[in-house]
């Protein structure tokens, strides 16, 4: 079985100005171009049904098993210390765990391997993105004439419904607070598209910085005087260190006065160290490449077997904190490794992960590697966010494509 990208009409459907305008204005993808280059396209990835089922199964199982290991950090202070999170993030995680505040939107990133199977390289458990493209690209592919297959992605409406349900636990008038770093348009676009969906459901939603929520006299959390029943967090938990309202948020969570999504309880799963701990405790799923704390692999082995290893900062949020041995000359790898090992020995958390050899697939732009992001809402599949790249490393040159599943 193979994955393929199907060309729509042999041309470039986003050259149709109305489709590009719709992408920007209806689906709020404001960064369709980066450095003058197109970052999205409409030629879809088409998954055979069996591969779709495989991807869903792998993602759901890995999330379940790895998050179970990561949750040990809630009860065990020694385990918790390994994650090296700031105290503020630990406090928020503790509050969520205490209150059984456990809603989650997660994206498990799968690499399509040479063996024709999917392999997990990342779990984005804290605040995964890509909502706008996941919503808009399949619809625009349809508008461009792609009539086959089934669009399985419903992440934005499903997320909005879940947030609405969480808010209503606090009463019909409670709003959804949507916190994000307000100076970044790429973060605003995610929250704005979800807010539009919430408004369709008749649920008020407020866009605000993470510093805005405060506790009112009744112990409820509020933003600008409006009670917040659910907090949609598009802001990493560890970045909240130093905020004066962390205590208020934790208190409201622990008291059951607000629900969060993704719950702070999942902050340990976000760390790439969770995959290392999964292996440490004997966890074994064929689809999870061996992952270890960087210091568990001998320096000699890392240097010698460069092409077999990828090293990553445990809480890295960008590709720059990832070094893929196979893509570097020995000299560069040695230099990078020396610096990273020094950081690790100084207390920063880094992991080493076995390199996954990927299968290139034919596309209109030549052979490309696929990273298939699988969205899970409360552990269940709600859609895809797919990127293709010319090298086995998703970076600035990744192209985001819609994903369809072959009709049965």
């Amino acid at each position, binding site marked *: 079985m193979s994955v393929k990208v199907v060309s729509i009409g042999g041309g470039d459907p986003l050259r149709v100005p109305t489709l590009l305008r719709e992408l*920007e204005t209806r689906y709020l993808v404001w960064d369709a171009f980066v450095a003058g*280059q197109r970052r999205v396209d409409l030629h879809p990835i088409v998954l055979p049904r069996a591969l779709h089922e495989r991807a869903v199964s792998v993602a759901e199982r890995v999330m379940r098993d790895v998050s179970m290991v990561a949750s040990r950090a809630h009860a065990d202070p020694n385990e918790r210390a390994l994650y090296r999170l700031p105290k503020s993030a630990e406090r928020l995680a503790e509050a969520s765990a205490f209150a059984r505040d456990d809603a989650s939107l997660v994206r498990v*990133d799968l690499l399509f391997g040479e063996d024709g199977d999917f392999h997990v390289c990342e779990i984005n458990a804290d*605040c995964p993105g890509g909502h706008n493209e996941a919503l808009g690209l399949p619809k625009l592919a349809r508008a461009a004439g792609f009539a086959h297959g089934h669009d399985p992605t419903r992440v934005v409406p499903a997320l909005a419904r879940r947030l609405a349900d969480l808010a209503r636990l606090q009463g019909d008038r409670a709003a959804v607070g949507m916190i994000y770093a307000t100076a970044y348009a790429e973060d605003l676009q995610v929250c704005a598209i979800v807010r539009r969906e919430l408004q369709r459901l008749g649920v008020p939603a407020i866009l605000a910085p993470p510093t805005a929520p405060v506790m009112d006299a009744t112990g409820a959390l509020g933003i600008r005087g409006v009670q917040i029943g659910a907090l949609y967090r598009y802001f*990493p938990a560890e970045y909240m260190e130093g905020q004066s309202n962390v205590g208020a948020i934790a208190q409201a969570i622990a008291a059951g006065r607000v629900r969060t999504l993704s719950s702070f309880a999942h902050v340990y799963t976000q760390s790439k160290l969770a995959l290392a701990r999964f292996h440490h405790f004997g966890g074994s799923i064929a689809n999870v490449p061996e992952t270890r704390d960087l210091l568990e692999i001998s320096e000699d082995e890392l240097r010698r077997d460069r092409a077999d290893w990828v090293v990553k900062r445990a809480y890295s*949020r960008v590709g720059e904190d*990832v070094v893929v041995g196979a893509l570097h000359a020995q000299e560069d790898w040695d230099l990078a490794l020396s610096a990273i090992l020094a950081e690790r020995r100084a207390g920063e958390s880094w992991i080493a992960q076995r390199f996954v050899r990927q299968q290139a697939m034919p596309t209109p732009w030549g052979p490309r590697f696929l990273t298939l992001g699988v969205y899970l809402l409360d552990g269940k599949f709600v859609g895809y966010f797919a990127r293709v790249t010319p090298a086995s*490393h998703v970076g600035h040159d990744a192209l985001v494509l819609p994903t369809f599943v072959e009709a049965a």
Partner: protein
Amino acid sequence: MRPRVTIPLALFSSACAMQPWTPSVPVAYWSQPVPEGKTEAADVHSSDVISRWTLPDTDPWAPYQKMTLLTSLDDMEANTKLPYTDGLEVVMHARLVARRVAAAGIPEGTMIVADMRGPASVAFGAELSRAMQTPVSLVLTFNNWPAEDEVIPAEETLSALVHDSPRAQGGGPPVFLLDAWRLAFRFDESDPGWVDNRYTLTDMPTADVLARNGIKHVIYLVENLDETDVEEDDLHETFTAYQGAGIRISMMDLDSIAEHDVVWSTVLNDTILNVQPRQLIIHDPRFYVGSHGGWGGIRATPGVHGGHAHWGGGGFHGGGHGGG
């Protein structure tokens, strides 16, 4: 919307906080207040406004335009009144200057970067487009939304876009329209409840792109050189690269064009900007700490924990073997 504007507040705590004098400094501290207008958001057809300002797909500068601000129209409260910006002195001044530039014509191989208070940049672009004998390509770069309790008044620029119109867009020299508010208040600490809707320009064309399109000279137009002596911080690296590639940059203000007949050979040579290495707020941890909710706090500082505040994993934010 309740913009935090034009009030010198307790912001003069240190003159150093305002240095160097970039276009955002005078805009932040000495701008003329803008009155409320009569137009309500409900009266505006966003698709019409977007159509008026969008560059055609075939225009080489289209990939650099940002529709972000215009898309906020559909999310505004229907009874929100847009401010009346047409009577601002700087707007009228910008229109006059645009007509003078149009009369002289834009020198061949030249790109204009208008970095003034948003409505003035918009007025300059629209007037230039209408007054020129030949087309121009106006490139919008406004990349955030207005908000309740906002830090900068994004609705000023939005109102100008709603009420003004260029001639048919595209097919001419590029004129990038910037809002100098975008990096105002440099090191001032934001109130935690405010929406810090400032932003940086992250997507200007490279020197290679300019060269491919025959651009050899950049006119950097600011409001007033008495209060501005260097380019804005988010343009520094771009301009340094332009300079290194042999593209000349002339930094001029409205007066330097308005008070004389424009003789480009003189004006361009007399106003060459020599971009010098300097400290930038976008690399300074104090900037990120000062607006935790806007810019992400200390961890978002480039180089701190390997970080920058692009954690979404969407788009170019990483993922796969690349992280998050």
